[in-house]
């Protein structure tokens, strides 16, 4: 790529947190963009938390049983629902971004978002029912 001047501003240095998450006065795409990043970061943290919890298995049966008792508490189940929301939103919005990026539904990207979110809400409700009843 040829040399071009950057948009760096010494007076107002770039602030990723503000650029990504300041969605005041922004539109649907920015909300989806911000939530996609937030869920992406949260799922990355969850992955490491998950591995840390699995290490409980190294403490033998009693250590794992202690964790299972905690995992069946209502608060923990609520965290499961939040996790499922993150997975569904990130996955379904990712599908939208991939499709639009390939030129599929580029003009209907808002409609595509809402269709996928309706599917996601239904899956979330079914998942929540399963989590609290099994």
């Amino acid at each position: 790529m040829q040399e071009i001047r950057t948009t760096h501003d010494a007076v107002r240095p770039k602030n990723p947190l503000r650029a990504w998450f300041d969605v005041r006065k922004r539109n649907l795409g920015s909300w989806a963009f911000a939530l996609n990043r937030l869920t992406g970061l949260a799922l990355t943290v969850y992955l490491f938390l998950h591995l840390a919890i699995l290490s409980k298995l190294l403490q033998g049966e009693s250590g794992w049983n202690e964790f299972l008792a905690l995992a069946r508490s209502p608060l923990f189940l609520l965290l499961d629902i939040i996790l499922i929301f993150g997975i569904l939103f990130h996955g379904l919005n990712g599908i939208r971004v991939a499709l639009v990026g390939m030129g599929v539904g580029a003009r209907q990207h808002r409609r595509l978002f809402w269709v996928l979110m309706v599917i996601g809400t239904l899956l979330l409700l079914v998942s929540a029912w399963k989590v609290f009843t099994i």
Partner: protein
Amino acid sequence: MAERKVELKVFRYKQGQTPHYDTYNVTVDENTTVLVALQDVRRDQDTSLILRHSCHHASCGTCGMRINGQEQLACVVKVLELGTPTVVVEPLQNAPLISDLVVDMAPFYDRYNTPEMPYIRASEFWPKTDLPDGIAQYTRYENCLECGLCVSACPVAGTDSEYLGPAAMAAAARVVAEPRDSDPEFALNWVDNEHGCWRCHVAYECTEVCPSDVNPGEAIMSLRGALTRRKFRRVFGLGK
């Protein structure tokens, strides 16, 4: 005409000083635009206020700024239609600040000033000319005012200083769609990198704020589509 008093809260910056906001009381009527209100402030209250403008009718694209947090052309935004007692006026984002409401547009224009993407191109078809077979209608690709609102609103431009940005990539998409004497392969190669069309994350804020219906978001997606098709052709040995 009914007049009302409104507060203008204006971002101020002079080189070497700390940025801050100054508030001015202005009297406006239903026809007063933000640009005219700012000019009134400059004429009657504070001659040190620096702003850029030219045509007053959304044609030149020089008065782009953030008005109540949204990128707009100040010349066509009426103060009272904003519906707020205080109107916050700030310079565009993602461009180096020069003074008050004026940013350095040179990095923005750099992205246009690229070989095979010239400012001046062969003339448009005459609108009343007969359409060739297979063409439903001619689409104008050169509506862009080069106002920079799209780059200011783009969350990716807010993090990547080398991002080519929506306006320049809309121009590249124009070259690909209608090359005339340009080389579409050059434009495709130009955007095919981590600071180009693959960096976009489909927030579509560029399209939302564009005052000229250029639809840069869709243009970037069309570049991705063209590059994807090109990569498939190359993988399966179907030409370049």
